[in-house]
């Protein structure tokens, strides 16, 4: 019997064209698997959309629609309304999903509208911190000092000069249920999806999905990078329920940000000079501020063996 038949059925099956080690492919499969078969997905343009749907080779085994770059939230709103009026929506979770670019930037308005109208839709934002599909361009969720192809470091620049847009807080301000998860913690991600599913109304899960090609690390380190992001304090994991931050993933001992940044070539320019070291201090300050806000532990530099 063909091996693929031996395998469990997943929402996203093999044969897709994601890069080897793609955090987004992993994150998306884990998230939708946690929902089950009774789902309808509207997907924005991006890696997640492109790598699984080169006609006719669809990797999706659940009902799925791609319309445009910025409108999954609006398409999902129409899907939810259509199911409701026809009395067919019982037990079906409508999902709108996209990358950080389509969620934080071009699709921001559509997502905001969907959230404030109170649709029972789960919005999944797969955050690989740049417009990866078009070649690693800077988005509103690109972190401070990261190299992207539109925010390259040079004589006049240290890379991206803005802070990550605090999308979870903005979404929470709409009154929606929010969760921040990571492909580096797959079981936590699935638990968060299952918990969100119990919420009736708009819910948002932001999933940090490391990108080997875009961030510049070996393809086997995807989960390791996800864990380091959390352990450094740069990507805290938490939920926001009724406007309150709850269930913060404990980080009793933080690693210094260098442990997370050094293995990624998108930060290589920070490790070449004393001026770069000054930039690292600024990034450490971001992590420290997160630690204060979310109650994470102090930095502990690991002793060499």
């Amino acid at each position, binding site marked *: 019997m063909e091996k693929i038949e031996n395998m469990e059925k997943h929402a996203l099956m093999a044969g897709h064209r994601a890069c080897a080690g793609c955090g987004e492919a992993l994150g998306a499969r884990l998230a939708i698997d946690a929902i089950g078969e009774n789902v309808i997905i509207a997907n924005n343009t991006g890696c997640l959309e492109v790598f699984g749907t080169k006609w006719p080779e669809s990797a999706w085994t*659940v009902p799925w629609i791609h319309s445009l770059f910025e409108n999954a939230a609006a398409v999902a709103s129409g899907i939810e309304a259509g199911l409701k009026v026809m009395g067919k929506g019982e037990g079906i979770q409508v999902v709108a999903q996209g990358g950080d670019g389509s969620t934080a930037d071009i699709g921001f308005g559509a997502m905001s509208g969907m959230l404030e109208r109170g649709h029972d839709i789960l919005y999944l934002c797969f955050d690989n911190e740049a417009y990866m599909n078009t070649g690693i361009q800077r988005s509103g969720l690109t972190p401070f000092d990261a190299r992207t192809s539109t925010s390259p470091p040079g004589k006049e620049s240290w890379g991206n000069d803005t802070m990550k847009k605090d999308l979870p807080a903005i979404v929470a301000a709409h009154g929606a249920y929010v969760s921040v998860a990571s492909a580096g913690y797959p079981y936590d991600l699935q638990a968060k999806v299952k918990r969100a599913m119990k919420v009736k109304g708009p819910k948002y899960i932001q999933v940090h999905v490391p990108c080997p090609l875009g961030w510049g690390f070996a393809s086997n380190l995807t989960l390791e990078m996800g864990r380091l992001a959390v352990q450094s304090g740069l990507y805290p994991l938490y939920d926001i329920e009724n406007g309150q931050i709850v269930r913060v993933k404990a980080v009793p001992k933080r690693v210094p940000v260098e442990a997370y940044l050094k293995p990624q070539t998108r930060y290589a320019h920070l490790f070449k000079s004393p001026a770069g070291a000054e930039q690292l201090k600024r990034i450490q300050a971001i992590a420290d501020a997160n630690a204060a806000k979310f109650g994470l532990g102090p930095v502990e530099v690991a002793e060499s063996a």
Partner: protein
Amino acid sequence: MRKVVEGSAAVSEAVKLCRVQVISAYPITPQTHIVQNLSQMVANGELKAEYIRVESEHSAASAALGASAVGARAYTASSSQGILLMAEVLFNIAGLRLPVVMTCANRAVSAPINIWNDQQDSYSVRDAGWIQLHAEDNQEAVDLHLQAYRIAEHTRVELPVMVCMDGFVLTHSYEPVDLPDQATVDEFLPAWKATRILDPKNPKTFGMYSEEGYSETRYAIEKAMLNAKDVIEGVSAEFEHSFGRHSGGLLRGYRMDDAEIVLMATGSIIGLLKSVADDMRAKGKKVGVLKLVSFRPFPGEELAKALKGIKKVAVFEKAVSLGAPAILASELRSALYAAKNRPEISSFVVGLGGKDISEQTIHRAVEMASAGYVAQHYMELDEEFLRDLAAAR
């Protein structure tokens, strides 16, 4: 039932009679009355529909797309800037072959900003793959909405339909209109039985990335547009049978039989052209009027047939294609290019931004076209204003 109602109210009644299931609404003058009326109907429980108060026209079209993709009858309305903002969604809906119907309350586009009627908005999205039908008056506006879902959902078509009605001129004017009863509409327009839907019981992937088959899929839309020509005619004929009056179809001639010159246009200006034609006929000039209802699909063959033997055509349009000759005239000239003994086709741009079109304007244009070929002429521009603009820095 015959009532004197505002055009928007007549249209919203028609949309209600179509039993639309999902309405996405975003305000823009001059369509807003339509969606406001619909919201009151939903609030009163007269119309069992989901009403989505979207945050932009781009989302209005997108929500209609999503609803249609699960098999619900979807509706939205827009004008001007809204049509342009949703332009990419319009192409997307047609490409996905979803039978959404929308009203375009024709209005001028910015800049300069102007809320009054012209047809630049719907003409500007003519390439999107939507069927575009133009109403002459509020009765035809009502009737075209009732026909639109039949056309869109027809298995030989499966394309979205845009019903165009002149903003303010029709939407805000009060005319006597016959509003049919629900039972007759239900018989004429049964519920939509969608065959390709998003359904967990039968999952499919919509909107895939395609290299292989892209051209062929686009060509298939062209074929559907050609099919739409006889579907439009067929639905109009059925409509006449069910409701007792002619409405819609591809085009309609008025006093054309022995016409020396035919006046052609889309939309409410037809009423004015007919009035001028009657005047001129009374004075011995043989003038006819050709109303084009279906702008897309553009019924080139049918127009050639209707204009066979006609020596001169004067095309009036409320739109431009800046940097090139006017659109309707160009498309007519192109459609008749290969015809033997084709008429001389003169082009007149009128009424941009709601500029008043008087009977005198039409008379003058007819004189000009009768005297000789007019490649293109913008009627009634204020000469002093033009001089000032030319000198402006």
